[in-house]
């Protein structure tokens, strides 16, 4: 039999429907692949093989009767940020040691409702704070990609590094992920996968460990644009339990994938042409525009004047919200507790031991910018800048732009333990320079593999859309995927 793990989600779905194989066979193939790969890649922090087999058997019963949901029998990996009932949910942090929620997040509930099978929980940067998956309490995820002629381990990006690595290395058919500043799109770009952060409010945040609530959105990482669209349709939807969830119908996103870009206007923001941008990124970007033009789109130069202020404003807003959200981890209600001489001592010791350095640094920045005397100068100012960033996009869309094309990341994947990045926190933050504007404005953004760098490492392009117009992003991303026509699979070394 062919290797079932290599099938796209769409093809696996077809095979299940045609009874070419069973959900249990498909699930067992993934379980075997995970057992073999995880010691090398560290993509999963917990696996649930028994549960997976039970879910697969129940899918097989439905499929045998010609029934089942849109994801019936499809094995998925779930980022450790999503609350999964009775199963490891720690946001890859020490402070949530042993935490097994009594509830299921809305997004994962939607996936199980549609018949998906859970393989386990995926590694990530601690509390989704990072761009390399190196801040995880469970250690870094190793990218399935290596530079040509090199055995050096590379990062898969972050924070959804486990999701991206697992999807790329055939350790799940697709994965859930979350994106606060680029945490879906940057790892997708680094691993030759497709990742979409939908419009803020499209997916419920209920039951997902909160990082920065006004920026956090869930979305899928998948091996093809079509697979991402199928996942998105299942994950999205109105949820009264999330007050910022939007009560809009969810389109069948997969139906938009082959719609093409004829007649669309694609904006090219001049502010994304950064000083010192590598020539191969420039080339990739122009190539992407040529592909879209060849399929009937019009390209238009636009200006998003406040682009350069998005990242500094983000590093006020996100830590501020994080410092508030993470105040709940105090050693009383769940997770780690380090006893002290009194309750304050217990709080301080627990949080000092339970949080990693990057998380503590961000809580401290957030606490500082919210403290008396600094609130207006930092937080209020940043929220005003955010209004300006959003207006930049609104002006562009108002002037007739349907979607915006940019690079996804300033470079290809870098090495694990990169010293220049480790010594300067701001250097790591610059990874999100092209993606963070999208979160600040609440817009949808998709990363799609478009080419490779000189070392054979994948590079991605990003498309930014109007609020709730993910369909155009899927259609345009599909044109890029088809035009690139390249195989973005890693060469298996693990």
């Amino acid at each position, binding site marked *: 039999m062919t290797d079932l793990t290599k099938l796209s989600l769409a093809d696996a779905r077809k095979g299940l429907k045609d009874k070419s194989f069973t959900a249990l066979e498909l699930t067992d193939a993934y379980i075997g692949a995970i057992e073999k790969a995880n010691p090398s890649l560290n993509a999963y922090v917990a696996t649930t093989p028994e549960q997976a087999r039970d879910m697969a058997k129940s899918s097989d019963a439905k499929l045998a009767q010609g029934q089942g949901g849109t994801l019936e029998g499809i094995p998925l990996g779930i980022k450790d940020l999503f609350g999964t009932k009775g199963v490891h949910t720690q946001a890859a942090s020490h402070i949530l040691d042993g935490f097994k929620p009594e509830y299921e997040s809305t997004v994962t509930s939607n996936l199980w409702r549609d018949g998906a099978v859970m393989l386990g929980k995926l590694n990530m940067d601690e509390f989704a704070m990072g761009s390399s998956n190196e801040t995880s309490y469970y250690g870094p995820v190793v990218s399935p990609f290596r530079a040509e002629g090199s055995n050096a381990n590379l990062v898969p990006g972050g924070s959804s590094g486990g999701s991206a690595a697992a999807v790329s290395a055939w350790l799940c058919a697709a994965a859930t992920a979350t994106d606060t500043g680029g945490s879906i799109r940057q790892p997708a770009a680094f691993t030759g996968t497709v990742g979409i952060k939908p419009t803020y409010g499209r997916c419920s945040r209920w039951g997902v460990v909160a990082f920065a609530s006004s920026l956090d959105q869930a979305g899928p990482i998948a091996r093809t644009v079509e697979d991402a669209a199928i996942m998105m349709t299942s994950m999205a939807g109105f949820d009264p339990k999330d007050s910022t969830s939007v009560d809009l119908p969810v389109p069948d996103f997969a139906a938009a994938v082959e719609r093409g870009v004829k007649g669309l206007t694609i904006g090219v923001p001049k502010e994304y042409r950064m000083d010192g941008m590598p020539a191969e990124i420039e080339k990739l970007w122009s190539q992407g525009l040529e592909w879209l033009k060849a399929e009937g789109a019009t390209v238009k130069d636009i200006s998003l004047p406040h682009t350069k202020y998005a990242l500094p404003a983000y590093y006020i807003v996100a830590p501020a919200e994080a410092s508030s959200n993470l105040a709940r981890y*105090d050693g009383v209600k769940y997770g780690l507790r380090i006893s002290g001489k009194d*309750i304050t001592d217990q709080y301080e010791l627990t*949080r000092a031991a339970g949080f990693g350095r990057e998380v503590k640094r961000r809580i*401290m*920045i957030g*606490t500082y910018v919210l403290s008396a005397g600094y609130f207006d100068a930092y937080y209020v100012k940043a*929220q005003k800048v955010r209004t300006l960033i959003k207006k930049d996009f609104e002006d562009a869309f108002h002037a007739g732009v349907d979607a915006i094309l940019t690079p996804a990341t300033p470079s290809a994947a870098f090495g694990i333990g990169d010293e220049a990045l480790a010594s300067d926190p701001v250097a790591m933050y610059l990874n999100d320079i092209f993606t963070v504007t999208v979160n600040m404005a609440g817009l949808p953004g998709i990363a799609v593999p478009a080419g490779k760098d000189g070392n054979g490492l994948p590079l991605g392009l990003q498309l930014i859309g109007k609020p709730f117009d993910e369909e155009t992003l899927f259609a345009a991303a599909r044109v890029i995927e088809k035009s690139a026509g390249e195989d973005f699979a890693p060469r298996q070394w693990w």
Partner: protein
Amino acid sequence: MSVDAATVKRIGRLARIRIEEDEVAGYQNELNAILGFVEQLAEINVDGVEAMTSVTPMTLRRRDDVVSDGGYAEKIVSNAPLTEDNFFMVPKVVE
């Protein structure tokens, strides 16, 4: 703006994170690097600009003020490090 060692310790106390003496200088450098980076926001004139409160134009929904969930204290405390009779146990706070 930049922070000194005393401020680092004060932030640590406000954030309820114990900062050991030998960690202060490291945090001070890191926080100042980030504060230096965000300093560029000073260039922008935001006079008359409204601070964003909601990224999508929406008013928060309301629901009837009735109990709609609950009645499972044992589930609420099931992950706590120390409990007794469905209460969270903490060190004595009132003498």
